[in-house]
C-alpha cells in the first residue's frame, strides 16, 4: 500500500523512505505543492507560512536522498520535511517573530533545534506564522496577518503558534516546531485537532529561540500523532552547552513510551483530574469530550481520581507578571541600532539615538507587545518589584508544590487543554482579558517547568470543532505523556475509525495565481 505523500504521518513517511517506496524530494515537493495550493496570504487561504523556502528544502531533500543512496548513516526522520515557527533563528531564512520590527532580518546563525533538524536531514519547508513575539492565543497579533483554522477558515487556529498547528492540520507539513511559553504549542494543537507537546523546561535547547519569557519558554513538537511528536522531540532534545538551563540528564525513551502506550494497556496507572481546571467557564462540548476520554483511560486499565491544586487559580495572575517582566527586558534590544527596521522620527533632521529608538519602537511593535512591555516595565519598577515580581515568584513556588503534592499520589494529571473550541477571528481581539483566559489550563505547566501534551479528544457537539485533552507529568517524566497519550489516541481513533483530521473538511484549493509559490 503506497502512502499519501501529504496525509501520511511522519513515521509512515520515514518507513516509506526506508523501504525505497518514496524519496525525500517527492515528499518535500508534495508538501511544497500543498502549501502553494492552500496557503494563500494575509487576505485568504490558511496563511500558515510567512516564508516558504522551496529551493532550500528541495536541496536538503536531495542531500538526504543522496545520503540514503550512498548508505550513509541516517536519522530516524531523515528526509521527512518540517516547518519551523518563525521565532527560531534560521541561517539564511528570514526570522521575523511575526513582527514588523524584524522585517527582513536574516540571522547569521541557527537555533540549536534548527541545527539539529538540519543535521538529522529534515528539509525545512519554511517559517510559520505566529502572534508577534509569541504574544497571543489566536495568531491574530501577527504583523503579517492572521492564520486561519483549517477546520473553519473564519476561525482562529490558536496561538501563538497558530501557523505551525495549521500547517500540520492542513497537511502542508507532517511535522512542525513550536514554542510554548503559556500554551502556545498546546492550545493551537487543541483547536486544530493536532498533537502538541511542551517538553520539560530545559529538555530542549532554547538557544536561538527569540525569547518572550526565558524562564517559561520551551521548544516542542507539533504533529498529527503522538508517535510523531515522540520522534521529533527525541531528535531536537538533549543537553546543549549553549543553553545553561538545558538539563544534562537524558530523558527516558519517548518513542518506546509511545509504542508501549499504543498497545492500549494502562493497567496500574493513576490519573488525576485537576479540580480547578474544568467546570465553570469550560464549554459544554469540551467538558463532554474530556469526560468521555477519561472513560477511555479507565477502560485501558487506568485509575482516575480527582486532585485539587488550589494554587492554580492564581496561575494566570502570576503568569501575567513574570512573563511581561522578562519580555519587557528581552525586547529592549530592538532599538534600531544593530538589526531590524530603523524608523527616523519625523520633523527632526539630526535626531539623537534615543529619538530613533523611540520612533522605531513606536512603529515596529504592535499593541499587544507594547501592552506587555508597559506591564513588565511597571511591575519591575523600584517600589513595585516585591509586590509584583516577588509575589508572582512565590506563587510559582506554590504551584510547583501543588504539582509535587499531586504527583505523590498520581502518575499524570489531566484537564481540557483549552476552555473552548476555536473562536471566530476578531471575536476576542478587543478584549485582552478574554484572550488571556484561553491559556488558563496550560499556564501552570510553564510556571512549574513540567511537561504537557495536548492531543485531540474529538469534536464538540455544538460546533463540530476539535477539543484538546491535556496530559501533564512530573519534570523529566515526559515519557509518561507519550505512554498515556498514545494509549488514549489508539482508543479514540478506534472509535472514530481513523485519525480525527480525517473528519476535517477539505481545505479550499486556491486558484493558481493565488497559490503561486512565494
Amino acid at each position, binding site marked *: 500500500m503506497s502512502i499519501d505523500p501529504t496525509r501520511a504521518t511522519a513515521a509512515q513517511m520515514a518507513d516509506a523512505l526506508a523501504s525505497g517506496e518514496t524519496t525525500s524530494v517527492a515528499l518535500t515537493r508534495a508538501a511544497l505543492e500543498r502549501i502553494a495550493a492552500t496557503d494563500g496570504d494575509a487576505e485568504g487561504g490558511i496563511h500558515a507560512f510567512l516564508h516558504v523556502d522551496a529551493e532550500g528544502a528541495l536541496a536538503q531533500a536531495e542531500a538526504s536522498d543522496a545520503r540514503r543512496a550512498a548508505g550513509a548513516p541516517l536519522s530516524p526522520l531523515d528526509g521527512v520535511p518540517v516547518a519551523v515557527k518563525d521565532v*527560531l*533563528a534560521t541561517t539564511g531564512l528570514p*526570522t521575523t*517573530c511575526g513582527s514588523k520590527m*524584524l522585517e527582513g*532580518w536574516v*540571522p*547569521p*546563525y541557527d*537555533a540549536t533545534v534548527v541545527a539539529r533538524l538540519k543535521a538529522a536531514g529534515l528539509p525545512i519547508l519554511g517559517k510559520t506564522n505566529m502572534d508577534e513575539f509569541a504574544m497571543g492565543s489566536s495568531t491574530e497579533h501577527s504583523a503579517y496577518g492572521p492564520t486561519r483554522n483549517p477546520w473553519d477558515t473564519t476561525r482562529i487556529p490558536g496561538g501563538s503558534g497558530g501557523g505551525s498547528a495549521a500547517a500540520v492540520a492542513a497537511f502542508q507539513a507532517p511535522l512542525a516546531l513550536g514554542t510554548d511559553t503559556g500554551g502556545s504549542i498546546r492550545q493551537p494543537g487543541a483547536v486544530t485537532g493536532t498533537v502538541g507537546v511542551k517538553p520539560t523546561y530545559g529538555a530542549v535547547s*532554547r*538557544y*536561538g*529561540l*527569540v*525569547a518572550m*519569557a*526565558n*524562564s517559561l519558554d520551551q521548544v516542542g513538537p507539533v504533529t498529527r500523532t503522538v508517535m510523531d511528536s515522540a520522534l521529533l522531540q527525541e531528535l531536537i532534545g538533549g543537553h546543549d*552547552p*549553549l*543553553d*545553561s*538551563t538545558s538539563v544534562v540528564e537524558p530523558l527516558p525513551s519517548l518513542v518506546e513510551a509511545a509504542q508501549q502506550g499504543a498497545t492500549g494497556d494502562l493497567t496500574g496507572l493513576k490519573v488525576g483530574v485537576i479540580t480547578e481546571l474544568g467546570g465553570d467557564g469550560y464549554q459544554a462540548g469540551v467538558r463532554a469530550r474530556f469526560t468521555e476520554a477519561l472513560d477511555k483511560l479507565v477502560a485501558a486499565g487506568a485509575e482516575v481520581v480527582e486532585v485539587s491544586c488550589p494554587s492554580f487559580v492564581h496561575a494566570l495572575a502570576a503568569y501575567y507578571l513574570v512573563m511581561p*517582566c*522578562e519580555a*519587557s*527586558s528581552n525586547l*529592549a*534590544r*530592538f*532599538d534600531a*541600532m*544593530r*538589526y531590524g527596521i530603523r524608523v527616523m522620527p519625523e520633523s527632526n533632521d539630526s535626531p539623537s*539615538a*534615543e529619538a530613533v*529608538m523611540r520612533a522605531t519602537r513606536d512603529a515596529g511593535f504592535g499593541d499587544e507587545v507594547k501592552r506587555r512591555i508597559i506591564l513588565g*516595565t511597571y511591575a*519591575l*519598577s*523600584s517600589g513595585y*518589584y516585591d509586590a509584583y*515580581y516577588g509575589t508572582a515568584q512565590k506563587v510559582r513556588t506554590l504551584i510547583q508544590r501543588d504539582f509535587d503534592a499531586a504527583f505523590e499520589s498520581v502518575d499524570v494529571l489531566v484537564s481540557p487543554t483549552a476552555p473552548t473550541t476555536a473562536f471566530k477571528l476578531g471575536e476576542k481581539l478587543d478584549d485582552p482579558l478574554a484572550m488571556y483566559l484561553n491559556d488558563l489550563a496550560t499556564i501552570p505547566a510553564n510556571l512549574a517547568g513540567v511537561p504537557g501534551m495536548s492531543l485531540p479528544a474529538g469534536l464538540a457537539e455544538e460546533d463540530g470543532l476539535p477539543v484538546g485533552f491535556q496530559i501533564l507529568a512530573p519534570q523529566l517524566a515526559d515519557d509518561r505523556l507519550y505512554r498515556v497519550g498514545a494509549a488514549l489516541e489508539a482508543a479514540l481513533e478506534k472509535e472514530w475509525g481513523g485519525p480525527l483530521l480525517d473528519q476535517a473538511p477539505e481545505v479550499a484549493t486556491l486558484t493558481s495565481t493565488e497559490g503561486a509559490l512565494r
Partner: protein
Amino acid sequence: MSATTETLVDFDEVLTRYEPALGLEVHVELSTATKMFCGCSTAFGGEPNTQVCPTCLGLPGSMPAVNKGGVEAAIRIGLALNCEIAEWCRFARKNYFYPDMPKNFQTSQYDEPIAFEGYMDVDVDGETFRVGIERAHMEEDTGKSTHVGVTGRIQGADYSLVDYNRAGIPLIEIVTKPITGAGAKAPEVARAYVQQLRELIVALGVSEARMDQGNLRADVNLSLAPIGTEKLGTRTETKNVNSFRSVERAVRFEMSRHAGVLDAGGSILQETRHFHEDSGITTSGREKSDAEDYRYFPEPDLVPVAPSREWVEELRGTLPENPTAKRARLQAEWGFSDLEMRDTVGAGALGLVEETIALGAAPQAARKWWLGEMARRANDTGAEIAELGVSPADVAAVQKLVDAGTLNDKLARQVFDGLLAGEGTPDEIIAARGLGIVSDDGALSAAVDKAIEANPDVADKIRDGKVAAAGALIGAVMKEMRGQADAGKVRELILAKLT
C-alpha cells in the same frame, strides 16, 4: 561648565569644618582569554567589531553561558580582599537603554554578589587604614562608543561609532564601604587604595590592570559631613578618573567644591561628575543619574553560581602573599629604611623595584633609579611611573652595565633618555649615541697629557704630593672625553704620570 562659577574652599580650611567620607568603586577588566558569556576573544586592539558573536552582540535568540575562568578570578579577588564567598548567587539584569549596550541590559549581579564583607589594609605614609570592602561582583563590559565631531563628546557629535569588541569582557566591580576618619589624608587614602588594589590584582595575575588602557577604572564617591555629626552627607560619584594621581586630585577637588556649596548654605546634588585630567576639576555628568531605575531582576537564562567549598579552598591556596606581610618582608630583605619603603610604595614603584632586583640589580640601585630618576620624569610629564615606557628589565640591564664599568651614572641617564624617546634597547642606544665608557689607554693617555699641559700649575701641585689636586685634572679629562671616561682609570693615569 558650571564649575567656573563655583566657590572652592581651601583644602586645609575644609578640614576645619568637615569630615570627608570616601567610597571607591573599581572596575577591573579580567584578562581571561574569552568573554564572560561567550567564546569571543578579549584581545585588546583588534579591528572594531571583529571579536563578536550572536551572544555578545545580543542578537535575538542568543543566550549567555558563564565563563568559569571569570568566576574563578572573581573568587580569587574576593578571597584576596578577605571577603566571604557566596555559596549561591545569581546574575541579574540591569536594564537601561544605551547604544553601546547590545541587549539594552547589562548582565551583572545585584543583591547576590559572589564576594562580600571583606577588607583591605592600605598603607599611607607608614600608617595603616583598614578599608572595608562591601562587595565584589561579576558583570560584563559594554561596547565602546566613539563620538565623531568637533567636541569628541556625545553633545555636538555628528555621529557615533560603536565597537562591540569590548562588549561582554568580564569585569569585577569592587565596592568599598564608606571610608571615614581619614581626614586630611582622604585624598592619599583614596589614591593608595586604588594603587595597592592594583598591585594585588597584578599579583593575582587576573588582569593587566592598566589604567591607561581602561583595564582598571575607578569611580570616586565623596561626601562631606560637618565635624561631629554621625550622618554621612550627600555624595557625588566622579567618573573618568584615569590615573592614581587623578584619584587623589578628584577627591581633593570635590572636597573643596562640596565645602563651597555647603558653606553657602546649599545642598549637594547627588549626581555623577566627570573629572577633567587637564584642569583637575569635575563637571556635572548629567548623562546618567543615580535616581535611574534599573529594574533589576534575576537573569533567567543563567543558572545560579554555586561554588563548592572545596573549590573555594583550593583557590585560597593559590593566593599570592598578603600585601602587608609582603611589604614587611621585602623591606627587611632589601634593607630599606621606613622612609625609603614608604616612598617606594607611595610612588607606586614597589612592584617595579621588586622586579628590577629580581633581575639582578642591587636594592639601593634599583630604588635609586626608580625613585630618583623615573619618579622625577613621571612627575615632569604627569604620567604614572609604571607607564613611562621603561621596564624593570631595562633598568636592570642599565645597572648591570654600570656595575661592569661600561656606563657611569651620567651616561646611564642618557640611556634612559633614549629609552623614553623610544630609541630601542639599552645596547642599541649606547651604540647609536656612542655612550660607552672609553677605557682605551691610548686615547685616555693623550687626553691626560693634554690636561697636564693645559694646567701646569695643578700638575706641579700633584708632583709636590698634593694628590687631592688631581680632581681638577680629572674634570678636565672628563670634559675632553665628553664624560665617557672611567674616572678611576683617569685618576690612575694622572698619578702614574706625575708621581
